[in-house]
């Protein structure tokens, strides 16, 4: 139990108690007036009513007279000018100009400069394929949520993609050298031998937008690689502002040493989920363990690394204890493996993620 929670709880309980019981402890009675009243019987009350004067007969109400319609004082204006209804005269068509005589053909030059024979442009294949099945993805040793193309052979397999950095001898500033890394090649489903390629095209050739024109001599220009396109401006995320405001309301009474911050945004949660998913390998699990959902608790260090000793199985469903243990082992490996440098979690919100419960549900992995 956190100190902040205790203080907050006590304060709230006190407030509720004051609101409920506060009225009983008012020291001075409010001033009030005393009015004398007498009790009478029903008969006396009836007698009082009957002794009063009778209500007067209703007077006749004069009906309102029908309003007279007054003559319209506004005179209809007369038009200043008369409107003629004549048809407009058509504009006479200009007389066609006399076409100039076509120029006489130039005499053929004596030196015959034969144009090189152009290769017949390849007719683009635009017909729909006879087999229109969905293309079958390529088989891969690794099955992951997303398809990953084969990486550069020099790249070291890693979850995070990064380019190689090598220091040039002539460089003035020396950057930290690093190896190129890339995610391993992966398919998003198991492809069996029986699922032979359907013949459906992976990408279709488009017809040319216009007839190919005669070749002209052009100067080969090198594309300008120096001007990088400006990345599109990202819409400003307003969720943080809302969460900041909420945190301001809810943040009182917490442990001062642990930065609470606002709750994690959906993006931050998603990043954590993806990081753990990429290391959750269910390939070596038994069929029963693949049908078992486990809830795993883990305490986190402020650096974003899990406290390995704190990883614990909280609950399981869908399988035997043995299967739950296997599923838990795979989940524990997933949590530990992908934290070489710690999970990328906002330090200012440490209080929100210092304890995490992860539910590993392999249901979708069974049908891969």
């Amino acid at each position, binding site marked *: 139990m956190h100190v902040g929670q205790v203080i907050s709880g006590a304060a709230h309980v006190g407030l509720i108690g004051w*609101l409920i019981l506060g009225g009983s402890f008012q020291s001075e009675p409010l001033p009030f007036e005393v009015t004398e009243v007498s009790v009478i019987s029903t008969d006396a009350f009836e007698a009082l009513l009957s002794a009063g004067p009778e209500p007067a007969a209703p007077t006749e109400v004069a009906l309102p007279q029908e309003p007279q319609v007054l003559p319209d004082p506004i005179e209809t204006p007369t038009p200043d000018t008369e409107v003629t209804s004549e048809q407009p005269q058509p504009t006479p068509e200009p007389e066609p100009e006399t076409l100039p005589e076509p120029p006489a053909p130039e005499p053929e030059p004596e030196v015959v400069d034969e144009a090189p024979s152009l290769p017949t442009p390849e007719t683009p294949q635009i017909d729909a394929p006879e087999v229109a099945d969905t293309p079958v993805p390529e088989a891969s040793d690794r099955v992951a949520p997303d398809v990953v193309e084969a990486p550069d052979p020099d790249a070291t397999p890693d979850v995070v993609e990064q380019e190689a950095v090598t220091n040039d001898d002539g460089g003035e500033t020396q950057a930290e050298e690093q190896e190129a890394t890339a995610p391993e090649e992966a398919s998003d489903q198991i492809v069996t031998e029986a699922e032979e390629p359907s013949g459906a095209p992976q990408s279709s050739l488009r017809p040319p937008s216009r007839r190919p024109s005669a070749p002209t001599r052009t100067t080969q220009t090198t594309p300008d690689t120096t001007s990088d396109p400006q990345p599109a401006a990202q819409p400003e995320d307003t969720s943080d502002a809302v969460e900041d405001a909420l945190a301001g309301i809810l943040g009182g009474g917490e442990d001062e040493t642990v930065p609470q911050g606002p709750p994690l945004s959906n993006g931050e949660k998603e990043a954590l989920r993806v990081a753990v998913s990429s290391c959750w390998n269910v390939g070596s699990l038994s069929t029963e363990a693949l049908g078992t959902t486990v809830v795993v608790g883990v305490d986190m260090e402020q650096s974003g690394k899990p406290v390995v000793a704190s990883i614990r199985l909280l609950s399981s469903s869908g399988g035997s204890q043995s299967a739950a243990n296997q599923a838990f082992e795979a989940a524990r490996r997933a949590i530990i493996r992908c934290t070489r440098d710690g999970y990328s979690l906002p330090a200012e919100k440490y209080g929100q993620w210092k304890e995490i419960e992860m539910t590993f549900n392999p249901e979708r992995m069974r049908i891969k």
Partner: protein
Amino acid sequence: MMFRLLLIVMVAFGVTSVAAQNGPLRIEITEGVIEPLPVAIPNLVPENAEAAAMGQQLSRVIAADLAGTGLFREIPADAYISQITSFIAPVQYADWKAINAQALVTGAVTVIGDQVTVKFRLHDVFSDTELGEGLQFAGTTDGWRRIAHKVADVVYSRITGETGYFDSRVVYVSETGPKNERRKRLAIMDYDGANVQYLTGSEAIVLAPRFSADGNRVLYTSYETGFPRIYVLDVGSVQQRVLESQQGTMSFAPRFAPNGQTVVYSLSQGANTDIWAMDINSGQSQRLTSAPSIETAPSFSPDGSQIVFESDRSGSQQLYIMPAGGGEARRISFGEGRYGTPVWSPRGDLIAFTKQSKGRFHIGVMRIDGSEERLLTASFLDEGPTWSPNGRVIMFARETQGAAGRSTLYSVDITGRNLRPVRTPEGGSDPSWGPLQR
């Protein structure tokens, strides 16, 4: 008063909200990856001079077993940062984490005379702990491969949660010669194609050997007399005897019941073929089907209560299930093509089959109600599936096209991954996977 009540409700709601915010962060992981688990298997440490070569041999077989499943990937030895030089020395987990080894097998071997002793430990590298306790196996030097298989079975079991299948044997038909002059004989081998031994000569054609549940006997069909007849062979003594059969009939496609006392088989009389059951001790037979169509290839459920078989009673070859004592059968296959040679999984949840469709043969699996059919292979000719003892792998025969076509044994995981040939000295067909050895 109303204002006060409103305040109470608001404050109470506020307390619960704050409490919810202060609970642990909860996320759900529903997508993972399926890839081989990286495992390091250094050579077992020899504890005496006689064991020097044995340590490497053992580790190679263990590694081949695990990598052969497709569920594990061995990390090559030249990637190791630290070496295992002593079985009792503490493991430097950081060195193994650095090369992304998720599991580590360490062990030692001692050879004294013809006795070999192997002790080993399995480590969960990223948890800095051992996975289970250390174990020790002992046997003769001749049986060193079995010891390696047993170590691999334990490693496989502790990581996957399933029993292994490495210390098991397969009986099959070994084939030599061209298709029109093929010579066949019964052979038995380790699951990985090692230690092949021949059980019969190649004088007569032999077909469809089937292990008993205990792995001590084999049923098979032989044309020794010119007609197909069923024989039972004792694996230990290689003694065989013919099962009783009626005159003028042909009997084939035998299979043991799980109790080992009953044999089901097909019997042809004239143009009709039905399924029969025989008590192997008394020779008493019972007819289980009586349709005018062809019923054959019976296979028991693991509990012995039902039989799956193929029949063309609907006009095309399909799969049916009936009670073990005979009776009304229900059809379970409804896809396009012809289904045959059904085999019930040892787990009881799936049925493997051969399917012929659009000019190609497939090995596939379906649930016992016929749902979730999944084709695992496709080729010119795939047939004769058999299950590994743990129900995770299927072995079958694949024959290539042409007069010089050769029949080869293959195995495939039930997910359809890890299709690979089983190396045998000669061609092979009709495999039957036996139980784990004791």
